[in-house]
């Protein structure tokens, strides 16, 4: 049976001869092989598809999903492992978004900690007044998002205790931190109320040295290193997402461990 699509008069086979070199060039296998190579190349050659706006939006949406997943997974009663005093690294390892030589020390005498947002008492705090709050000590592992880690001994007031002292609304979603070096960070309320989340003022039995956040820094055992702001100057209790220096650049915000 002749196909209905076949022309009534067949074309002159001569036209094929006229285009023989072109026909030879179109070798199906070559097209297939080329296509496969191109596909593999786009996947493998140090490409940056994330610079495409819609790809980036999808990746960031997945990161928000990971925030929610980690919030659901977080157990406020689950403690991170603690270690022996002889395992403590002295001095601690420096980390910031700049080099240690560029640290600008904070003057403890003039330093004030501002508190704001959903809190009852907005009186600023001094070093002396902070020291009067009940103190807690913990030896925990600091884990950087890059992959390195060290064991450190931190002491100070539990953030949960401090929030109670300033009459914070613990139904609020976020605690935002502002720092003397223009760093900023924020954590979720359940992590803020975790027993191993401290506003630290001491390291290995001594006042925290300048490069490590004097006079006040956050130390939480359940989050990556960059979630622990140093040289804190303001704390805000809020329902409005405050972001953070690194999360604003694409690092996962929750970054729980």
């Amino acid at each position, binding site marked *: 049976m002749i196909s209905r699509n076949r022309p009534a008069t067949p074309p002159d086979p001569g036209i094929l001869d006229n285009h023989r070199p072109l026909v030879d060039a179109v070798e199906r296998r070559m097209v297939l092989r080329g296509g496969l190579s191109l596909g593999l190349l786009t*996947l*493998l*050659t*140090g*490409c*940056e*598809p*994330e*610079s495409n706006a819609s790809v980036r939006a*999808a*990746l*960031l949406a*997945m*990161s928000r*999903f*990971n925030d929610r997943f980690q919030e659901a*997974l*977080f*157990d406020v009663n*689950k*403690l*991170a*492992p603690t270690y022996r005093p002889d395992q403590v690294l002295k001095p601690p390892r420096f980390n910031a978004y700049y080099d240690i030589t560029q640290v600008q020390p904070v003057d403890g005498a003039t330093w004030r900690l501002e508190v704001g947002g959903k809190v009852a008492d907005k009186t600023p705090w001094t070093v002396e007044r902070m020291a009067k709050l009940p103190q807690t000590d913990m030896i925990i*592992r600091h*884990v*950087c*998002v*890059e*992959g*390195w*880690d060290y064991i450190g001994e931190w002491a100070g007031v539990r953030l949960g205790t401090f929030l109670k002292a300033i009459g914070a609304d613990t139904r609020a979603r976020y605690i935002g931190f502002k720092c003397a070096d223009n760093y900023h960070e924020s954590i979720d309320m359940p992590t803020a109320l975790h027993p191993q989340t401290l506003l630290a003022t001491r390291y290995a039995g001594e006042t925290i040295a300048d490069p490590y956040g004097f006079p006040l820094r956050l130390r939480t*055992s*359940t989050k990556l290193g960059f979630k622990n702001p140093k040289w804190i100057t303001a704390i805000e209790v809020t329902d409005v997402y405050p972001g953070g220096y*690194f999360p604003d*650049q*694409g*690092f*996962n915000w929750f970054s*729980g*461990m």
Partner: protein
Amino acid sequence: MASVAANPHGLPRARPLHPWPIRVMHWTNAVMMLVMIGSGWGIYNDDVIFSWLRFPDWLKLGHWAQDSLLWHFAAMWFLGVNGLFYLVYGVVTGRLRRRLLPIRLRDLVKTINETLHFHIDHSDLTKYNAVQKLLYVVVIFAGVMQVVSGLAIWKRVQFGWITELLGGFQAARVVHFLGMGVIVGFLVVHVLLAFLVPQTIWAMLAGGPKVRE
């Protein structure tokens, strides 16, 4: 019973060697695995485990470390869910057992011997030789270990017992790295052999020969 009535010879219905769920899962796995490997190399470079090993920029996925992390933590869900579907499907349909078991030492020796003498038989795509079976079992196990060691790194507090089991945070990083090495090693052999016997690639795209089992 209806199925017997419809099939008077009592034989199971002929199905493609790779039914469509297997093909979908295979190519999903292939793409997501490449994303995981490329982004994993980007994350690794941020703080290397071995001072002599740094992956070249053109091999990694993600310009900055945070980009590699975004890729890794997005693709892991697709890879993980896909892998879970694959294992459930393989167990429920009996495919894993039929295709990959048993692996006998005698058969392994025979296959290796044949391979060394270039007598390896590719005529029947539906039968895996002992070495193939072993490699598939090893890479499936490596995949499961990547999920376990990945959890140990990501959630060393919430899943602290896994981290402890693997010997701590840094040990978990090494395990995760070695698991990657096993998978990349498999990938090189797997892709090389697939191109040497191209009908296997076509089978994974179109379904391959019909089998009754």
